[in-house]
């Protein structure tokens, strides 16, 4: 479904060129639950950003449903992100001014969407935060914020969920709850790609990709 072919990403800093991804082939199909593992700085977040159409590769091609989206305009890529992709960021990035429920609704706030509140509440209940709907992020623990972020990534009914360390801040039980939730969505043909250091995650995933120094091993 989403596919990167020979993806190279280079960063230029102070005249030096740093190659973060060295020609990666990667693809996921609907319903796949894939873990990306690797040491810090190996390019995991970079790959996730490229697959999530947040960033463009220096070389190589990204295809969505067979269509080359590498050279799409910002506007087109933004629309695809909205329709197809859900993000869970390494630092959650909730909006501090909004309640948990509003944070979940954020991606759809600009659409005239009637059932949005019910869906947001339902999602928060599924990640175990049914009693925290009106809390602001500063009134939530790290793990609770993480779960709000996960609920937010699912509100647009994406076909791909990209999660950077989704269980990084969670205890074992809550981690399992989240992973169960991810597994549930993969059963509805949603692909989940999770960057992780957590061996627990690999118990749930279909396969694990090891990224070392910008290359897949």
């Amino acid at each position, binding site marked *: 479904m989403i596919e990167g072919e020979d993806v190279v990403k280079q960063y230029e800093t102070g005249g030096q060129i740093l190659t973060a991804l060295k020609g990666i082939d990667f693809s996921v199909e609907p319903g796949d639950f894939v873990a990306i593992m690797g040491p810090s700085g190996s390019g995991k977040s970079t790959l996730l*950003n490229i697959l*999530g159409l*947040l*960033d463009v590769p220096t070389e190589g091609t990204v295809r969505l449903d067979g269509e080359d989206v590498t050279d799409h305009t*910002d*506007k087109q890529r*933004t*629309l695809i*992100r*909205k*329709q197809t992709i*859900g*993000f869970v*960021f390494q*630092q959650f*990035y909730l*909006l*501090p*001014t*909004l309640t948990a429920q*509003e944070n979940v609704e*954020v*991606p759809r*706030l*600009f659409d005239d969407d009637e059932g949005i509140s019910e869906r947001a509440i339902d999602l928060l209940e599924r990640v175990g935060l049914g009693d925290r709907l009106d809390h602001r992020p500063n009134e939530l623990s790290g793990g609770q914020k993480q779960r709000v972020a996960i609920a*937010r990534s699912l509100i*647009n009914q994406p076909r791909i969920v990209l999660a950077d360390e989704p269980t990084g801040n969670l205890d074992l039980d809550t981690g399992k709850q989240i992973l169960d939730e991810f597994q549930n969505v993969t059963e509805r043909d949603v692909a989940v790609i999770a960057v992780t250091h957590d061996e627990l995650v690999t118990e749930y995933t279909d396969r694990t990709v090891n990224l070392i120094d910008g290359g897949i091993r």
Partner: protein
Amino acid sequence: MMERLYKRFPALLMARRNITRTKVRSVLAGLGIVIGVIAIASLGMFGVSLKYQLSQNLGDIGNQVIVTPAGDEGVQEITRRDVQRIERASTSSTVVPVKQRVDPISFDGRGSPTHELVSGMSHPAKTYTASEGRIPDPLRSGAVIGSDVAEEHDLRPGSTITVNNSTVRVKAVLESRDGFGFASPNNKIILPASSFADSGYDQVIITADSGTAANQSARAIRGDLNERRKRVNVQELGSIVDQINSAFSAVNTFLIGIGSISLLVAGVSILNVMLMSTVERREEIGVLRAVGYQKTDVLKIMLTEAVLLGIFGGLVGVVLSIGAGLAINHYVVNDVMATFRLQNMLYVVLAFGFGVITALVSGFYPAWKAANERPVEALRS
């Protein structure tokens, strides 16, 4: 109600939350707008009041030209020939020559007489209208008096006054008119010209149909009578009124210019606040972009914030300026309700509009900057 509004304009919800997040900072930014709006509105209203006050004093004498002998050149009187030349020069206007002297007058027939300025005219009916009685044309006997004189001494047509030890009957009381100084009919005492011994005149009043016609006559008279040697002074009230008006619009433009500078400062402070807030919220904006907000959506949110600041600042400013307007009109024109005259309200609306536009314009650069940040860059920290 708010819920519905937010559903309808989600940018409003986010903008409001963001503004209230840093209350002190927002209030300070809004304060700039408040001051700017007050400055423009109240300076504008001040100018309007002054002008109104002045033109009220001047009254409707703009179409009169008054010719007096050039005393500084040694000319003592306006001769009959002069009057004829004035009549020729000012076509289609009424020309009324006036003699003047100071006479001892007793208004109640008893007591010691006071000395008053008396005018001698043979055709007062040409320039004045009566509110009581009838002005004989020509005036051969009796007296015609201004409304202030009548009121002060309780006189009406039929009453008698004593001028120069002879009894004179009041024929008519003149209609009161707005005006000032020598042009005002309100304190005139008019006797027949024939009761004056000398043959020359002290004043010629020319009444034209309009200010422009008056101006033409004045120029013609100056050209004719003062051609070789200055014989007469020609005073034209219409041009005084025009000069005052244009002086006041210059003053007003200047005052509003000063007000606009304070709005400029307000704009800079909003720019500053918004820039700070885009830097602080870099990541949040990055997230919005990541989850599918277009650049225009981000632009909308940020501009809504700026406009909200402008609207709130502007509204507070409007309320305070109306307060200032009430005070100004109370002290300058002595009429509090004059604040709500259309011209004043136009200034208030103008000031409010400027305030909101200033906020919008100064919000634009920060908003544009926030919208064009690449989300990957914003989300790396």
